């Protein structure tokens, strides 16, 4: 895909919001791909975490928000622990989740009312509560 790069584009409002919520400097990323290589759930992701960072800086907000990468992230911090630039990538994924969950439409990833009784009976609180924290507004 052909993308025109401009100063305005790389400093776009979406990327700035992600930086603000995560407290991370997206420009520090030099695309080594260590995060994606070590990610235990990257096999299920549309884009690798390093791609999500680059897409954000290229102003591809829609592509980022439509991919499943940040919903798949399990906040295991493997990427954070291995990033040679010291970026806390798990915080970046959390920030993108929150860009969506904090919208007034409250588009939750998880519909709590749809969880079956059988599932609720089976699953421990620890999974439910952390799931609610990550997937609901």
């Amino acid at each position, binding site marked *: 895909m052909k993308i025109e790069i401009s100063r305005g584009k790389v400093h776009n409002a979406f990327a700035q919001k992600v930086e*603000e*919520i*995560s*407290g991370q400097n997206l420009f520090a990323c030099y695309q080594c791909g260590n995060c994606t290589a070590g990610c*235990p*759930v990257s*096999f*299920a992701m549309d884009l690798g975490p390093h791609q999500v960072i680059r897409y954000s800086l290229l102003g591809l907000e829609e592509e980022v928000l439509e991919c499943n990468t940040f*919903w*798949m992230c*399990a*906040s*295991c*911090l*493997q990427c*954070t*622990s291995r990033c040679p630039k010291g970026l*806390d990538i*798990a*915080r970046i*994924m*959390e*920030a993108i989740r*929150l860009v969506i969950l904090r919208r007034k439409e409250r588009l939750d*990833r*998880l519909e709590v009312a749809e*969880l079956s009784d059988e599932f609720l009976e*089976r*699953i*421990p*609180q*620890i*999974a*439910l*509560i*952390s*799931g*609610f*924290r*990550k*997937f609901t507004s």
Partner: protein
Amino acid sequence: MDRDRSSLRERHMEFLYFPGCTLNTKAQNLDEAGRGCAKVLGFELKELSNWTCCGATFPLAKDDIMALAPPARLLARAKEEGSTLTTLCSVCFNVIKRTNQLIKGDEEKREKINTFIEMNYQGDVQVLHYLEILKREVGFDTMKGALKRNLQGMKVAPFYGCMLLRPFEEMEFDDKEAPKIFEEFLDAINCEPVDFPYKIECCGAFQSVGAPEVAVECAYAILNSALRNGAEAVTTTCPLCQFNIDNMQREIHQRYNGFPGIPIIYFTQLLGVALGLPVETLEFHRNDVDPRPLLKKKGLL
């Protein structure tokens, strides 16, 4: 300090203990065995009064102060009742320890949190994991002296998961890529620790709620790796890991023909067996893959 066997009975150590929600219900096997072993090893877990859920996730957004209130309140209460706070659950340990580090190091957030919870906490409680008590306060050597059953020859893969270790600068628990406290623990109770490349991988965590099919793959990769390296059982410290790699073996069987299954045993249950606790107090009926046939085969039941 010389910590020989005879000193076990004379020493009386008390640690303030935060069980957490899941240990009160589905993970009673982790909790009961932990309390039982503590008594044998000469320390008492005194339950924190009026405890609540820790929140089960440390908030990763810099502006999410609200999610810090529950763990901060727990710590402030712990300060009123003692100087340390111990957990068995890795997730609780992570949330509470990280919150404590944040309160200690960030004056602005400390003030905000204290104003919100209407308490005055400065971050001066020491947050401990049960394994740290075993290693530093009891001592693995002392533990060895208290063993009643011989687990020799039992090949156990120690599964650390994420939350005990990461982020390692804040958790200050063990090496980030090659931790060894779990191996030392297994050595001390005569098990044979099985090294496997997935020991610090993620079990899928809360994806068992968000994307269960992904969590199943994570669990399968971990268990397959443990099996291929010769493990007869896997041991954990975390009820979330335990659920994902124990309970979800049902789904693994459906997806992978020929997956043999493997029992997942909480480390406190293994310790309980080694210390000679009555097997019925270790609540093995709560483990989804029953570890009792393996224990029987090893002549331990």
